[in-house]
């Protein structure tokens, strides 16, 4: 079934970008919405891209609903399943930097796909990835130097 096939990559992306607790709720909602909207999937994009787009919109909806409640930055809850080093690195990035980096460097998305998902111009997306990567490299090299 589709949930079995795609939960690993979707939850991987969501937990690295938003934190694991939030990730599981968003992933569940996304799968449910994808099931409801199955007829609208036209096969132009990969199914995983379509599903991730739904999940991203779910996250935006949650943020919009809870704007008044001051939703905590997800970086504080990134830890589960990640090494402290990666956790620390990602925690210092903004949400869009994390999302861009995870998609393009970890999940093999093209810049065009990621830009479309995040609603960013292609040039902005590329510079966001480059900036996020440079920040991580700096932290990684700093940690290596001790």
């Amino acid at each position: 079934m589709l949930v079995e096939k795609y939960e690993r990559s979707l939850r991987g992306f969501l937990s690295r970008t938003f934190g694991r607790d939030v990730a599981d709720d968003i992933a569940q909602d996304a799968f449910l919405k994808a099931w409801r909207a199955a007829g609208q999937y036209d096969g132009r994009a990969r199914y995983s891209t379509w599903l991730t787009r739904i999940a991203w919109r779910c996250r935006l909806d949650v943020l919009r609903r809870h704007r008044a409640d001051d939703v905590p930055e997800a970086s504080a809850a990134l830890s589960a399943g990640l090494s402290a080093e990666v956790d620390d690195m990602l925690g210092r990035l903004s949400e869009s930097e994390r999302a861009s980096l995870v998609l393009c460097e970890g999940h093999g998305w093209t810049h065009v796909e990621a830009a479309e998902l995040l609603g960013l111009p292609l040039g902005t997306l590329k510079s966001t990835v480059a900036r996020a990567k440079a920040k991580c490299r700096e932290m990684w090299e700093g940690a290596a130097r001790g």
Partner: protein
Amino acid sequence: MADEFDRFLESALAPPDRLPDRKFVARVQARIALEERLAAQHSALVHDLLKQLLALAAVAAGLWWIGRAAPVASLFSQSPAVGLAILTTLFSLLVVLLGRRPDGKVVPAH
């Protein structure tokens, strides 16, 4: 060419290398099954409601047609109490008939 950092980053950010999470999959499947059940119940309810409205309209039209017949109209005008008793009985019968589920049981009142 990818250096050590690139390799580290790629492996750190790649989807986790593991089997599907059975608990999560089961949770999502349960929610989908629940949604399917609710959708089926909803459509059955709408279907039943339409059928009942149609039946009510047909009965009302029948009663109206019968009421227009001269002997019935004169009976109603001479003794309205009898007419009311007949209408009440017919309405009660109708409620019992429409309240029956397809399996023949009467839907309990809540």
